[in-house]
């Protein structure tokens, strides 16, 4: 399969998030933390959320890995802060659809900076990098809805 041009992958916005990630660091008053790793490539994040009254009051992450995985989680935290848990869950679904080639989310303004990652869907081996943050988010929300406060 022919790889599409690299500029569809390495958008400036992605590199900016990679170099200067949003919401990177410890969240002292977190209510849930998910550690997610991609063993095949070593990408790793700890997503920390403070959930209050059905909302994501705050979100931070610690991690290292490739530009795609780290930019994606940076963009994600910026977007989910202050959102209702249901909304964040819906965002995760939309992002996953976008990674599987659905073009609608790429044009949806609600996706914010995440739209810059639409090109990743054309690089199948990199899709799992982009999904790392949202996989952690979905785990965190699942854990919470199961009644586990931590």
């Amino acid at each position, binding site marked *: 399969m022919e790889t599409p041009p*690299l500029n569809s992958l*390495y958008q400036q916005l992605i590199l900016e998030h990679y170099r200067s990630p949003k919401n990177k660091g410890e969240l002292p008053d977190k209510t849930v933390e998910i550690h997610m790793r991609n063993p095949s*490539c070593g990408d790793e994040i700890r997503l920390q959320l403070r959930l209050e009254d059905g909302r994501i009051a705050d979100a931070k992450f610690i991690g290292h*890995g*490739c530009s795609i995985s780290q930019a994606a989680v940076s963009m994600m935290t910026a977007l989910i802060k202050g959102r209702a848990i249901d909304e964040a869950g819906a965002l995760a679904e939309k992002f996953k659809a976008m990674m599987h080639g659905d073009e609608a989310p790429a044009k949806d303004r609600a996706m914010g900076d995440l739209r810059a990652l639409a090109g990743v869907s054309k690089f199948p081996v990199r899709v799992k990098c982009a999904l790392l943050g949202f996989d952690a988010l979905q785990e965190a929300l699942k854990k919470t809805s199961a009644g586990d406060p931590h």
Partner: protein
Amino acid sequence: MSALDVAALRKQFPALHQEVNGKSLVYLDNAATSQKPQAVLDALSHYYRADNANVHRGIHELSRRATEAYEDARTKVARYINAAEPAEVVWTRGTTEAINLVANAWGADNIREGDEILLSVMEHHSNLVPWQLLARRKGATLRYIEIDDEGRLILDDLPTLLTERTKLLALTHVSNALGTITPVKEIVAAAKKVGAVVLLDGAQGAVHTRVDVRDLGADFYAFSGHKMCGPTGIGALWGRRALLEAMQPWQGGGEMIEFVERDMSTWAEVPHKFEAGTPNIGGAVGMGAAVDFLTSLDRDAVAAHEHDLMAYAMERVGAVPGIHIYGPRSLDERSAVLSFTLGDAHPHDISTILDSEGIAVRAGHHCAQLVMKRYGVSATARASFYLYNTTREVDRLVDGLEAVRGIFG
């Protein structure tokens, strides 16, 4: 010694001649697996077209031919590593299975609680996890030879690491992650003084060095066909006959028995005792053809070519701003593996960008997570060279790294 005719050699490898992402392929992932010459493809094809039958079973002509091809291949591999006799060569799926065979069959009767198994932190997971499993079963302890900043084993620690508790030393001959060639003979001699059995992981060593198992002085040597022009799914364990004979089988089934009674069976002679079930006959034939191919070349010329190529690669890649090369700086201590990082570009990003230029390298932990931890990185990019690579391909790699800098620089 005449210079290697690399252009003629390349013609014999069909997979090298293709375009990837609109560029001619530069295949630099040879430490993962090598490409296959036409002679090996022909041998595989011929075997399945003309001789295919099960081995050591039938009386009919095809079975005779298949058995002969299978055992001839064993003889070729034995000769390639200078084994005392073909019976010391056990066919396996590859290096990993060869090591697991020793960990199970030899480990069962020879490792006890409180014993120590000495490894290095440079081991591929295939020469590490089988020993962790064995140590856990037996209550034995794993100890490690550390590496210095250049990826060389710290031999000064050997006198304290090797004691009468050390029952086994399992060590890589050539590191797949760093390219380090370990000073095997020196370490084997030290291990022998305390009575330890020595297994060498030859997955890379059998590819890039001329292996003489009797000269190395080890007890087991494990290697794979697919990294040295052969097919995947076939490899071999060389072991000293006395050790192999003393070991219990590790898998039961057809082929490995002599007589079967209701409650007990007796085992076939070595090496068949360790080859339960229908083996990878085609694979063995292919590995035999790979050995024929490699021995048909001037091996000194191949070694000189790889050495020159590495010298050129170290110099050119080393000059790329922001590059950090791992492993020994001296070419005498390094095989054809170039592990590196580049600025703040993650190795996966490097690999994706190089792939868009038609250049295949590996990015990741190279199944050597202890090495990554030692250097405080989660991954490196790795260009690994083989006899068919050229300086022009090194130039393409350097151009590709400039493209990486263009995006991440």
